[in-house]
């Protein structure tokens, strides 16, 4: 395989990994936000 | 003998109790009462120095007191004989007691005949008597009891009460966690009542009785 393609694949793997972690963080944040709104609604009742 | 100052205990995020201040004097029996989950055992562990309060301070007023702690768990090694159990605890606590006195200690709790039997075959009552022998061997200055009577027969219970009273006579500071207020209130000099995360009552037992026949009932329920 061409060396350049190999290098690009390597970089892609790294950024896919980092991106996956960022997506995980975003999902967690989403859950937390949902919990927060739910809690605020409960408090206003 | 024992002083707690604004002690609080958290379990994760949950406040078990907070702002508990009290003192326990030498030669007195303090009854620690409260519902399930009120944190009686947690408070007793803090008194014993087994766990740190989440805030506040707990300390002994005398230097290096001997602390005896008797809980539901028997601290017994099933594969050792009664005498070996006691010998181990003597070594672990660094006490200088002759083997003959260890046997006398077993005699005192009525286990002399079983000294060379493995503790694994003991009934709960016998194991708890062995545990009591361990505590008595210490001659504790501070005696902390966490419902040690649960599941004991009448004889063992009577022995326990007798030893609690003689500890008071000796000048020890006794704290007793109890569910069984009807039986244990008569022993006590003072009462601490934990309720809704706070110390709801802290005073002499006579006052506690006057205050609420009702509270007593509520606690027993």
């Amino acid at each position: 395989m061409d060396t350049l393609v190999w290098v690009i694949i390597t970089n892609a793997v790294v950024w896919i990994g980092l991106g996956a972690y960022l997506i995980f963080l975003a999902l967690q944040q989403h859950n937390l936000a949902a919990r927060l709104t739910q809690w605020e609604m409960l408090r206003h009742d | 003998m024992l002083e707690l100052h604004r002690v609080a205990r958290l379990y994760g995020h949950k406040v078990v109790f907070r702002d508990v201040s009290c003192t326990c004097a030498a030669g007195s029996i303090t009854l620690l009462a409260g519902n399930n989950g009120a944190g009686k055992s947690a408070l007793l562990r803090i008194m014993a120095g087994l766990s740190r309060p989440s805030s506040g301070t707990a300390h002994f007023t005398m230097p290096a007191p001997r602390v005896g702690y008797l809980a539901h768990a028997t601290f017994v090694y099933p594969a050792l004989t009664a005498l070996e159990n006691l010998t181990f605890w003597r070594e672990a606590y660094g006490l200088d007691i002759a083997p003959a006195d260890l046997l006398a200690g077993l005699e005192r709790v009525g286990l002399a005949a079983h000294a060379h039997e493995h503790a694994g075959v003991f009934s709960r009552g016998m194991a708890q008597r062995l545990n009591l022998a361990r505590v008595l061997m210490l001659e504790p200055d501070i005696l902390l009891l966490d419902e040690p009577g649960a599941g004991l027969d009448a004889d063992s219970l009577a022995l326990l009460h007798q030893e609690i009273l003689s500890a008071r006579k000796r000048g020890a500071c006794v704290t007793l966690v109890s569910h069984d207020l009807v039986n244990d209130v008569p022993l006590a000099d003072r009462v601490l009542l934990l309720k809704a995360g706070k110390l709801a009552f802290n005073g002499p037992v006579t006052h506690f009785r006057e205050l609420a026949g009702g509270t007593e009932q509520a606690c027993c329920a």
Partner: protein
Amino acid sequence: MLRLTLAVARKDLSLTLWRGNGLMQALLLGLLIFFVFSLSQEVGENLSPQSAAAVFWLSSTFCQVLIFNQLYALEEVNNSRLGLLLSPAPIPAVWLGKAIAGFILLLFAQLLFLPAAVVFLGQSLHGPLPPAVAILLLADTGMCALGSLLGALAQGQAARESLLSIVLFPLLTPLLLAGIGVGAQIFGNPSPNGPGAWMGIACAFDAIFLATGLLLFSFIYAGEE
């Protein structure tokens, strides 16, 4: 402090060696590992000295995890842990006592594993023995110092053995490399460097984790439920 240490060590040894099924489980597991690896040899062929040394230390490590699990489980039966914590002696004495008991048990197990390496893996002992014995003792010391510190960590958890293994195994890597490196030399794979460098590693490991155990044990071994 010394009295509590000796009391714990003596009690643990007598409970594991003479009462109950004690060391059997750990020994059998270790011997089974030797047997399974003997299957990797083709007819008329022996495992290379290095592989044999690796198998020896693999067995020892598994054995050590089981030993420390068992030693700390003794206090869980009737919650005697609290009884030990109430002792006026400093808590690290318990760590030292358990480490000593574990050390003797591990050495005992290794006495059996060595002939197993000779029999199942077709090894013979070459080379000077004193450095081999020294590295064995040094590696065992480090393993027990760390094992005794972390043995209490899984207290009250399900699947304690596997939890302890995954935390302990990678931390023991330097000792395992040292043990395997010197072991290979003893089984007849001479190296120009000799065991000197490995001794240094093992000593450093021992020093660091003996100090860590002494300092940090009381945080792990506590009355918190």
